[in-house]
């Protein structure tokens, strides 16, 4: 983070402005990309491709969106490593836990006759 922020409101040094302008371009490109990806996803689910293929593509597209927003919009790549650690630990624990949890449930363990709700 540059020193410039510590100045009173209207003042900003040139170099700081430059880096903000650079970020601006990154943001615009990213926004366009994200919109395009959402469009692709929407079309993709209707296409008569192999399910596994579509599934994989959807997963990677949403992963890309996810990481891109974190990295650029949320400034994580411009920021200190400790923030990545703080968030990454939570993300990693959550992912690991819930993937494991998903595997622990299987239909074989359910007594369908006991359920009267539907």
């Amino acid at each position, binding site marked *: 983070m540059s020193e410039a922020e510590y100045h009173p409101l209207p003042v900003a040094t040139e170099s700081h402005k430059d880096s903000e302008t650079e970020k601006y371009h990154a943001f615009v490109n990213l926004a366009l990309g994200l919109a395009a990806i959402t469009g692709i996803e929407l079309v993709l689910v209707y296409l008569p491709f192999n399910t596994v293929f579509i599934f994989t593509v959807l997963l990677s597209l949403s992963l890309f969106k996810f990481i891109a927003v974190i990295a650029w919009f949320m400034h994580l790549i411009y920021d200190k490593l*400790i923030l990545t650690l*703080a968030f990454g*630990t*939570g993300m990693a*624990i*959550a992912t*690991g*836990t819930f993937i*494991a*949890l998903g*595997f*622990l*449930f*299987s239909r074989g*363990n*359910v007594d369908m006759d*006991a*359920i*009267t*709700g*539907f």
Partner: protein
Amino acid sequence: MSHTETEIPTPETTHAHEPQVLKPERSRLGLMRPDHGKSVIIDWLTTVDHKKIGLMYGTIALFFLLVGGIEALIIRTQLAFPENDLISAQRYNQLFTMHGTTMIFLAIMPLNAAFFNFLVPLQIGARDVAFPRINSFSLWGFVAGAIVINFGWILQALEVMGLFQASGPTAGMNDFVPAMGWFGYAPITGINFTGAGTDFWIMGLQILGIASLSAAMNFVVTIVNMRAPGMKMMRMPVFTWMTLVVSLLIVFAFPAITIALGQLMFDRCFGTNFFVVAGGGQPILWQHLFWIFGHPEVYILVLPAMGIISEVLPTFSKKPLFGYSIVVFSGAVIGFLGFAVWSHHMFTTGLGKVATAAFSLLTMAIAVPTGVKIFNWVGTLWGGRVRFSAPMIFSLGFVWMFMMGGFSGIMHSSAPADAQQQDSYFVIAHFHYVAIGGIFLAVVAGIYFWLPKMIGKMWKGNLSTWVAIFSTVGLNVTFFPMHFLGLLGMPRRTHTYLEGFGWETYNLVCTIGAYILAFGIFLLVVDIIRCFRSGEPAGNDPWDARTLEWTTTSPPRVYNFAKTPIIPARDALWEHKYGPENRRITFEDDHGHGIHMPSQSWMPFIASFGFIPLGLGMSLMQAGIPYMGYFAIFGLVLIGMGVALWAIEGPGGYHLHPEEDAI
């Protein structure tokens, strides 16, 4: 707790020597800030001082320790003889549920929080925590949660007197106190099976969770950001390290229970099907979500204890902690692995072969870093000049007793063995060895070690030895026989038993042990009161200790350090006292700035106070008391208002210009 409060010097008295007279200012809301007031009560209610907050946590937690202890004594008395009918089965359920919940959430966690609050800023050379007002919010949130959880006792008393009956969705169920075990397994928590007690439990735990989460985030930020210059991560005292690990565990483990409790609340209040079997809900999901939180929770309880021990042992062996970095590292590994073993509480539910094997192996793996720590503690003692002062006696007790609890833990990490032990008294023996033999002894060691720092008075006499003897003998007499009871097949949570199973003698011995232990705790309370009333001045460093907190006065002044210390080495004070010249603690020049103190505030108190109407309203609504929905909404409004005004009023602050400290 009133007597402790008045005993502690208020800021006014500590600042009597200061020339300037401080006047409260107006906040951005235009209201007077409650700074520099004359009223002691207002001062404590609005305080943002981590030391006062720590003392309040400690006092309230000790109170709940006694409450939980009395509940336990009633349980043990009921079990002393076969077919005893001192209390009904229903009352028995309430007692063991509230005993577990109280001890874990209202006694041990806040006792740990008391130490975090008091010690961490002092140990890292900070003026306060990163967010003093959030700290106050956490304290009062904890109090609100405690009140909500225990409120059922009042309704229950009214019901016994014939003054109250449920008429709402839980009509006909007269259990107004939680009665489904501290882990609240579904489906007994469902609306068809339990009364308003479950609602109190849900709302109370939810509030306690919010308080713990906010406290934990606060401490992570404090430890990462507020360290004095030179206090590198690997120079921090182990206790601070363990606080960091525990806080991260809270941050990442509590959301699971928050959601699970939310789902349960929706099941009860709004007819969802998360855990309702008839609607397709899976009770087993509750078990998973609970233990995803629950296993990290047991490490949340024990890691601070390990931190305390890692401070006490080096001090009283006059040696640095053996293998500092290994101790820190294994603490972190325990924390991380703690997320990967939750299903060892569910071996007997039939997880499938692969899952059972995996969780069994991971549970065995977690014993490795635990064992490493024990070796390091023993290594610290080895060749040291050991002094058997009170804190040391309890710490040695911890090492031994905790190890015994660890052994039975490893025994039920093996799934086939656990199939025999699960839900029997063997498990009770396991976790009471880690909880009482481990955490409780460590906390007592911590009290004996740090109370002179906290209140500035030194212990008198050697009552502590008797505390140690009675509590250690008591806990072993109580819990060792439970191993046999478990293996003889006595199930846990059974309110009475028949003659002829060979359980009678063991149970009677356990009950006698419980009274011995209780007498030990009684002596502890007596000793603490004696210390408060007639202790001699403690001086800055009564134990010839090693870490930064002992450089401050006892009790430390509001601003902790007159000037920010610069830390040259690990074990800063020890190096300062006995190390080479270049390891002296020096102080930063503040250029006449003075010390910036945060202002006190009513807002955190108001915001967390709102949890009481919210929690009680939601629960009493279930019991059918009219208008309780509005009462709950009123609570929500209060919380929202408190937070909003808190944001608007601004942190404020004032400057102090104390004279320089000398160490």
